[in-house]
């Protein structure tokens, strides 16, 4: 199977700190791949390293067969990678519509994708003129995902979409992610193992800055001991 993303032994430093010390992630095209691990394991840093926001000092990031480590973030993103960061990062001074429009890479992206997006998140449609600040946590999360859908992205990096959301909203979020994964590959960071195991086909476990285990999600779900050891969850 073809990998859209191949992260090979990356080492990332933030200031003096050696945060990632050898992370390998292979993401098959069209799949949902979950990055799992305890708090502070380095999942977010892995996503940021892929995008070049915290460039790796060693190792390679190969996207669509092309080495992208060392390129500037906006160049990497422009190759078709969408980023839904931890804590959403909605632009407060922009309206909901502007938060979507700003993600355009070609003129008209927003108009083209509008129906698809509002189909996925009907709530957003009536919020369109509000400012980014006045949204609830769940609405902000929807907007953050929607923003990554405006341009034609082949790969979406989604960081903890269920964080701080009510169960009903999480359900809604999950079906949306399932829906959009029909068109693009998804790398999902998720603390909630139940959510991760229902969505993802593959997984990679990161522990203290290293990738320690990967494989098919259904094998991991059956291995209670591994789940307990790596994730501390039942």
């Amino acid at each position, binding site marked *: 199977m073809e990998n859209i993303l191949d992260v090979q032994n990356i080492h990332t430093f933030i200031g003096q700190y050696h945060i990632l010390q050898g992370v390998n992630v292979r993401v098959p095209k069209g799949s949902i791949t979950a990055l799992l691990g305890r708090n502070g394991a380095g999942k977010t840093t892995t996503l940021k390293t892929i995008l070049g*926001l915290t460039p790796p000092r060693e190792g390679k990031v190969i996207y669509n067969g092309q080495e992208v480590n*060392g*390129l*500037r*973030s*906006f*160049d990497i*993103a422009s190759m078709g990678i969408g980023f839904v960061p931890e804590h959403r990062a909605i*632009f407060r001074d922009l309206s909901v519509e502007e938060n979507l429009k*700003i993600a355009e890479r070609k003129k008209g992206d927003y108009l083209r994708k509008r129906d698809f997006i509002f189909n996925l998140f009907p709530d957003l449609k009536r919020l369109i003129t509000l400012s980014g600040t006045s949204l609830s946590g769940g609405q902000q999360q929807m907007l953050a995902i929607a923003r990554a859908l405006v341009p034609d992205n082949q790969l979406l990096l989604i960081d903890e979409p269920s964080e701080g959301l009510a169960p009903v909203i999480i359900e809604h979020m999950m079906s949306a992610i399932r829906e959009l994964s029909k068109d693009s590959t998804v790398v999902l960071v998720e603390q909630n193992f139940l959510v991760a195991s229902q969505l993802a086909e593959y997984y990679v476990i990161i522990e203290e800055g290293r990738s320690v285990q990967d494989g098919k999600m259904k094998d991991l779900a059956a291995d209670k001991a591994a789940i307990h050891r790596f994730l501390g969850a039942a």
Partner: protein
Amino acid sequence: MNTFLRKNIVMLVAVLVLSAFLIAAAQGMDKQDFVITLLRGLAVGSITFLVASGFSLIFGLLDVLNLAHGTLFMIGAYMGWTVVVRPDTFVDLLTPLALIVSGFALGDVYPLLASRIRLGLSMKRMLPWGLILVSILLFGFILPRYPIAIWDVGNYGQSPVIFAFMADSGTRLPVMPAAFTEISMPVALIGLLLASILGAFGISLFDGTPRTVHLSWRNFVSIAIALIVAVAGAAFNDSLTTFLYGLSSNWLFFTAVLVATLSGVALGGLMEATLIRPLYSRPIYQLMLTIGMSAIGIEMVRAIWGRPEFVMPKPAFFDGAGEACPATNFADWWANHCSTILLLDGRVRVYNEIFIPLVGLVVLISIWVLLQRTRLGMIIRAGVQDSQMVEALGINVRRVFTMVFALGVGLAALGGVLATPSMGLSNVMGESLLLNALIALAIGGLTSYPGAALGSVIVGMIQQFIIKYGQIGIAIPFTDIVFKPTPPLVPASTVMLMVIILLILPNGLLGKKE
């Protein structure tokens, strides 16, 4: 209505306090004094706003406290003065300045060039320094030999003070055109272009990250413009000079405003690309750099234009005098272009107290439209909050940084040149204005655009009212005492107000909580 009240409570209270203050101020003085003081406050506020808004845009988006902003305001003033008083000097400068900038206009091409060069590691380390050294040597050789007709700061009879005085009284001293003698023109032009390209290439190599560059004609537009300006300036030097000398004082002033603003834009872009950009990861060094730049800028102005203060001729449009002046209504004013107009029996200077506030208003609205209605403005507003996220969307934020820095410096330079006909020119004009602008921003909110406007107007008003009361005195109620605020109270009072506001609202009137 209720939510409106709650959201804008600070604004409303500020407006109320301000109006109360104005009403109180109006009690103690004549109607005409009040109107004039109000307009002067607006004028000072407008100039302050031009500096403060650029400063705040730069700080908001780039997180750079550009303490050289006042100096850049001053450089705008001196540039504009040069165009009005010595057009020949300006025309002579056009070519070398355009050539110095031209290399940096090729910014996107260098990464491509760099990727073609295969060198060993130690050579790769040396290359940028080598290029920069060659560039400096070339500049050092050519620039002192480049012929520029200029005043002589050392000789009083040929000093800017005299040129300014003569131009102000409507005559011009004869000047000697400069000619290429020490160096031939082609050598000078090609040498400067080469020096600029080598220097810009060298500096670009410090930023080691490779880039995927898709070259198109767009990448060459800026250098083409620079080269056209350079070649035209050299080829048509004489006719351009004659043309500028023949212009009416209005058109010459307009040209000066345009030139000063554009040189501010170019200088800002150059400064960001060469000095500020390598230091984004070291904010303290950046701060020290801007302080150093400010000192260097002042010394350069002293070396070129000298230390004494001098005047800027007012354009004839605002300088009429005679029987029909001061004008009593607008139609009268239009017919005679009087320098003053009677408003409620007070003599108002049209340029200082009406034109400048109008320009301030136009700029206020234009920048607001830019911020709220264009894609660039959207990116700026988003980037002020989280520039990393903007970059993660695939937007070249660094380029927007350069544009905003250039825009901010352009606004300061515009403020500088506009202020000259009323304030004159001096080496310290920038310092005091930067201080005003910083106080205005502290009052209004450091990164808030409406805050910059509100703060600037408040600072301008307070200063002017205190100056006025310094002349007429405040009659303390129920006593015979007339209190006259002394001049040192002017800056002190604005600082006091700043402290009071910051104690109540740490983020200023319209600033957002971080």
